[in-house]
């Protein structure tokens, strides 16, 4: 049993590492009471019983899930987890990061294959074209073909403005 370096009477329950101005570290064994007196607080509160740690961690996750909100319908990811249903089409975009692992678990994939919707098909084609133009632009810059790069940049800008992406 190590005794407290400050009072020398009680059992030291934590180690406080102090850095002097040269960056040299000194370790100090301190009991709970002295730690409190010296204002070394927050240590005890941050490490409660393990059951409580889980509850707290879960609350933190829930809190972060509650902050991920779909701006169109107002549904939070926490609410989705509770009801199991999404609020609108935009939720898929708003929760994309959190939904991908769920969708992968359910379907073994996160990329749709098969029929595309009419308006979806148009958008997918536009996106592909923009990606293709960006690749071409990079290639032109690498090859120092600045005239071509300038033309591609103008075209790309026009396409991006059209599609709002």
């Amino acid at each position, binding site marked *: 049993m190590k005794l407290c370096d400050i009072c020398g009477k009680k059992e030291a329950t934590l180690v406080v590492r102090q850095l002097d101005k040269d960056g040299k570290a000194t370790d100090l064994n301190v009991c709970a009471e002295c730690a409190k007196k010296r204002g070394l607080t927050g240590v005890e509160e941050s490490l409660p019983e393990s059951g409580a740690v889980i509850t707290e961690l879960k609350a933190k996750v829930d809190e972060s899930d509650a902050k991920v909100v779909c701006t*169109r*319908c*107002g*549904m939070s990811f926490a609410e989705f987890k509770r*009801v*199991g*249903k*999404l*609020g*609108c*089409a935009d*939720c*898929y*975009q708003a929760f*994309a990061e959190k*939904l991908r692992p*769920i*969708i992968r678990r*359910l*379907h*073994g*994939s*996160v*990329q*749709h*294959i*098969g*029929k*595309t*919707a*009419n*308006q*979806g098909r148009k*958008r*997918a084609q536009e*996106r592909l074209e923009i990606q293709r133009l960006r690749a071409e632009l990079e290639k032109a810059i690498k090859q120092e073909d600045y005239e071509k790069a300038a033309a591609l940049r103008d075209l790309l800008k026009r396409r991006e403005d059209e599609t709002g992406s």
Partner: protein
Amino acid sequence: MKLAPEKIGAWLSGSGPDSDVVISTRVRFARNLVDVPFVVRMKQFEQELVLETVRWALADTGYLKQGQFFEEEMLVEPDGMYFVERHLASPDLITCKNRKGLFVSEDETVSLMVNEEDHIRFQVLASGFDFATAFGKAAELDEKLEGQLAYAFSPEFGFLTACPTNVGTALRVSVFLHLPGLVLTREIEKVLRGAYALGLLVRGVYGEGSETRGNLFQVSNRQTLGQSEAEIVEVVSGVCRQIIDYEHKARQFLMHNLRVEVEDKVFRSLGLLRGARIISMEEATNLLATVRFGVALGIINELKLAEVSQLLILIRPANLQVILGEKLTGAEQEERRATFIREKLVR
């Protein structure tokens, strides 16, 4: 608004391929409109808007005049269960409190639910093992409706649905199988586990949870994203083809080695149905399914497959009450059900 309870769906005609084993094939798509929130977030006026928009699209594509569009008062408990028992609507459509609608084609092969879990869910049923018909008709309806409606879609996630379990193709295909041969030879567990391992969902058609009545099973795809519509159909169809072959082999084995025992079971069931004065739905379902088995094996020649398959639906509570035109208590139902079956089985 009229119901024709005794005239039951063409999908139960007992005429499709492999109809000795397969009762029906079903193809279902879910779709949502892009401009309206999903059902859990819809306001009343939005529910009405979707209902009207879909009805209008059905009229414009020529479907509406080939059937009936049911609303509110027809779609609540207990009477709404009439459609659930006939496999035309889900229990959720009847129990939910949304402004809802149900389109049913005259021959009951096409039905479309509005404002259930998704804005639109439509299905096509075909008699027997017949994906060509069921998928062909469903894809055609999908194309036509899409000409009228703008659907929620993302290039990454596909057709967007209220629940991520349906996202992607939003396609669910199912085959309703009658597998008494595999149950009697105790091979069923093996077969069903195999289907599950291949990514399919297997459950009893009647009864809650894993309880299966009448040896009737439903096999469908679990996953809806990452495979094309054609691939999904191919996998379910391929696995079911194999199950049908196993069932045929089991039936051959039984007829070869245990013919008298099978005949005994079949004729006892027919005898009970012809003699009973009080019968529960569970007992009637089990006995009728055994009789269906006898007809499929050629042991019973005086009845047709379609007659027996249809009876399996007509004896269910809501249908029985609509047919008889009376509200009946549980005990009254059991008595009238027995009479109804006796009359139908007289030769």
